[in-house]
């Protein structure tokens, strides 16, 4: 038990990643508000980023910028951070796109609740076909 706890404390970024991931998934799947879904997605994405970035971290390492004086220093792995920058770009575009979709839906239905939208869509269709008749 103690060993497990120690492991947990040493690897706390991973633990947080898992927790964040769970929160994100839960939010996406259980909330019917579109904004909350979007937030869940972003939280989930952050979990992935943390996982990646934490993997590059080395205890006592220095930032990976070339210091001419100190060749012996242990550098933090910069690759995961660089990669996650790309990931963040992707996540930004996803968010922007999703927001524009949400706005589109809000303009149409006046709500951001997924279930309500589904219900209203069915009603709208009914009215439409009645009109046509």
């Amino acid at each position, binding site marked *: 038990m103690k060993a497990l706890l120690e492991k947990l404390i040493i690897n706390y970024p991973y633990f947080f*990643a898992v927790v964040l*991931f769970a929160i*994100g*998934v839960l939010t*996406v799947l259980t909330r019917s508000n*579109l904004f909350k*879904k*979007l937030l869940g*997605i972003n939280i*989930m*994405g952050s*979990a*992935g980023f943390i*996982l*990646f970035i934490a*993997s590059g971290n080395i205890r006592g390492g220095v930032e990976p910028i070339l210091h001419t004086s100190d060749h012996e220093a242990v550098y933090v792995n910069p*690759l*995961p951070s660089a*990669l996650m920058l*790309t*990931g963040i770009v*992707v996540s930004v*575009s*996803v968010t922007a*796109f*999703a927001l524009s*979709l*949400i706005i*589109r*839906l809000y303009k*149409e*239905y006046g709500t951001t609740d*997924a*279930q309500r*939208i*589904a*219900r209203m*869509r*069915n009603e709208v*269709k*009914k009215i439409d*076909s*009645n009109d*046509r*008749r």
Partner: protein
Amino acid sequence: MTAMIADNLPVLVIIVPLFIGIVLPVFARRLRLVEGMVVLAEALGLVGAGFLAYMVVTRKGADWIYQVGGWPAPWGIELTANSLAVFFLAVVMVVSLPIALFTIGNLRQEVGGNMRTARFYTLFLLLVGSLAGMALTNDLFNTYVLVEVATLSCCGLVSSHGTPRAAEAAFNYLILATLASSLVVSGIGFIYVITGHLNMGFASQGLEQIWQAKPHAVWIAISFVLVGFGLKSAIFPLHIWLPDAHSSAPSPASAVLSGLAVKGYMICLLKFLYVVFGPDLMKEFSVDRILVLAGMTAIICGSVMALPQNNLKRRLAFSTVAQVGYIYLGFGLMDINGLAGALFYLASHAAIKSALFLSAGAMISATGKKKISELAGIGRKMPLTASVFTAASLGLIGIPLFSGFIGKWYLIAGSLDSGDFLPTIIIIAGSVLCAAYLFPVIRVAWFESPQQAEQVNAEQQAEQPDSAAQEGSRGIALQDEEMHSGQQVQQTAVYQNVQENTPPGNQVKDPGTAQKLALILLTAVIFILGIMPGPFIALAKRAAAELLMLR
């Protein structure tokens, strides 16, 4: 100059569509120019893919590895032009060229506005470029980025109609696809944490050495990747986004989504499983059995769910769910015939499903009707379109002379080789069910006149009471399109009164020349793959052998 191009072909095939696509919005006012550039990009891509395939096939010995920026393997990004890559590249280019042709001249009406059309083309070419990249890349993170580009392009294509329905479908797709991306990136993260490499070859070597020490981490990585790509490629229980998304997109977009995008994710999954984890690890963690099981479930469930759909595009979308199952089944067989069959089936389904969606789209946009029962007698008004639809349907069912037959032949051979008889039966049952959901369409299109359709509709209506109240949930709403057919019948009757007064075939006729050319090209592909599968199946077999014997 030629040497310059030939040496850099792997990267050029990717960047030419990408960069041509990106500058398109600038020329939005001159739509002709935009269309010309799209076709040019596609043609260049096709020529490049063909030439690359030729070079790879004639090349002796090891794969052609292209180092981007000249950086060697563990640090730089590699592009590997092996048999699998050129096979999928050829599929992408051959199928996307007709789709691009099909959009010429009639996309503007469907999407609305020059700028929107140009942006549609941008997304289309981005998707094509990223699919080409997925085929070629040998880097885990690069794969993720390309997958994301493809996913965003797909979402954009789905929502390009601009209707609230499309926006909703696109949003659901976006949420689930991003969930899948998070899973994939976490899976890649795990692989990176375990091995310290992002290059597929190095990661694979690392996994081989270390997996026994960390079986749980490897298992988590495998399952993340499997579920992530499974969600993106719509394997059965994870397919819920697909019918809405694929049926509410404009038909060229549906064609490219169902025909190619889904396949790209499957190729990624294939590379992750076979190249990164390797066949041994797959067997160790019974991934092969999971794939076979998932494939079989998808075949049956997808087909059964397609049966009650009355909306033509929804029926086709559910059919995609079923057909994805065949390919997964082949991936899981771990047998050279099965794997080659799956790859061939992938190619054939790409062509067939594109042809189906395009011809269905042509029918729908000509008549303005979406339901199968309303398309009665369309065969006489749009003979070419309906013929293409019929040929593609027969191909999907697996009639000899069409490409689907060859794919099924090798899948069955593979499943017999693997010693399990159940997949074989499922494959056959799948084609019978496929006939069950496609033959009614053919019958209605060719052999029914509108008056009879009305009668049949009325009878069915009497049998099935309106079940609108029970439906509601957006993701699982299977039949929501056909709930109100009662009102529709009345409307059809009005329409027919009009029709009887005006001479038939007045407005409804085959689409324009470019569209016809696109449909004919796709049908030709289906036939050529069916009658002379030799070189393609040889390439698929080579790819399968490379995947299986990599270790």
